[in-house]
């Protein structure tokens, strides 16, 4: 790799991965709050509200609780934002510049997507607050719960593509043979993705780690000022990135070949976001053991069924499975 390439990647990471994703994510956060307000017959906030929140938090005092581990307390929000930006940069590199994408591995994305949750666990545990510790332990259980069906759903993609694991190759395969979600196993994998996205974002019914009314913010209870803004920003960025990832691996992505397919891909992302917002508004928070049981029970069963169907379809050459 030459110096120019490294510089280009840095610019890509900052421009697309961080700034572009942050703006898109905050706008999606606004859509989430506005739709929530409309569902409750309220007017809702103005469009710039998430931006105002982040700017305000950046300007506030940052308090470190007595006895907290400074490294973990300040490091974890940075890790959360950085990993969200990195995932987004990789996804958009695979979408917009597939020929040059050398870091397009799905496994890297899986690892990076778990980092914001781990950062929340670390930050909550470092805060020396019993409620934050409870929130951190719940987040940890939730991660254990949803990672299994998440990996199984991605296994469907590997099987159906004949062992491809690079994002750019997956996109190319789908544009040649049709989106994976059109087949039965792919549709099941997409159905599995919906609650997994919900849990990764910490939205109701899986917001046990932050439980506003129960743990008063949970893992985030001791955070104020800039670190809190970083966590909010990371969540907003994931709100955009996770649906984009699901669309890329299962729904054919958003090929940059023309305006039409690209907009169609973005509409699929918006569709997934709307599903997440509607689930969040029509469900209560479940208890953590119910959430884990839900993920290890029905969701894993559906994901396993999708894997079996995909294997059958591949070995007998049945396309629609």
């Amino acid at each position: 790799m030459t110096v120019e390439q490294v510089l280009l990647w840095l610019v890509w990471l900052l421009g697309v991965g961080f700034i572009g994703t942050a703006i898109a994510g905050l706008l999606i956060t606004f859509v989430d709050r506005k739709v929530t307000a409309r569902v409750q017959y309220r007017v809702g906030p103005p469009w710039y509200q998430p931006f105002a929140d982040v700017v305000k938090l950046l300007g506030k005092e940052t308090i470190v609780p007595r006895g907290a581990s400074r490294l973990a307390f300040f490091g974890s929000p940075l890790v959360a934002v950085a990993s969200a930006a990195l995932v987004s940069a990789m996804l958009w590199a695979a979408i917009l510049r597939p020929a040059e994408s050398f870091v397009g591995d799905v496994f890297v994305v899986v690892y990076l997507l778990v980092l914001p949750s781990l950062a929340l666990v670390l930050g909550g545990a470092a805060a020396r607050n019993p409620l934050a510790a409870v929130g951190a332990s719940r987040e940890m259980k939730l991660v254990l719960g949803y990672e299994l069906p998440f990996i199984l759903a991605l296994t469907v993609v590997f099987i159906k593509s004949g062992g491809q694991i690079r994002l750019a190759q997956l996109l190319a395969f789908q544009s040649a043979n049709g989106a994976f979600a059109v087949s039965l196993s792919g549709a099941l994998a997409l159905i599995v993705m919906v609650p997994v996205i919900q849990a990764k974002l910490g939205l109701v019914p899986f917001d046990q780690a932050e439980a506003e009314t129960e743990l008063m913010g949970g893992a985030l209870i001791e955070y104020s000022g800039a670190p809190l803004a970083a966590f909010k920003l990371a969540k907003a960025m994931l709100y955009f990135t996770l649906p984009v990832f699901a669309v890329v691996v299962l729904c054919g992505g958003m090929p940059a070949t023309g305006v039409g397919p690209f907009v169609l891909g973005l509409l699929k992302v918006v569709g997934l976001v709307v599903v997440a917002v509607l689930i969040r508004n029509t469900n209560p928070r479940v208890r953590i053991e119910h959430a884990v049981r839900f993920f290890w029970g029905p969701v894993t069963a559906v994901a396993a069924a999708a894997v079996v169907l995909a294997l059958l379809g591949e070995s007998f050459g049945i396309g629609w499975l």
Partner: protein
Amino acid sequence: MGLKLKALAKSPWVFHVSTGSCNNCDIEVLDLLTPRFDVERFGVLLAGSVRHADCLLVCGAMNRKCIPRVKKLWEQAAKPCLVVAIGSCALGQGVFRGSYAMGEPVDKYLPVHAYVPGCPPKPEAIIAGVVEALKALKKKE
């Protein structure tokens, strides 16, 4: 007015402090979040943790047990933070004045930015109180 204050004025997250109130003012505070008043229009959210708060809504007559706790809450809040005293009790202890269980009114212990009289005050008055507190903050800067 700097960008910091502008953003603060656009998203004041409120934290609800009850210092031994009769629950009447507390219900009026919660009214603000209902569809009829919907203060999220102005970016107001109810914060669960005092660390996230930009504005303490203090109601109640401030009994002796509450005094150290209210002081601690104020210390724990990230500055700049506003204080709005809500209801006759928070302003002058109302009918509880002179009771053996009471300390002094809220502004003896906290720097109050706005006072909202009433027993209980109307939700509109509480919204006006938060707006007044933000104005007071701007003037100070």
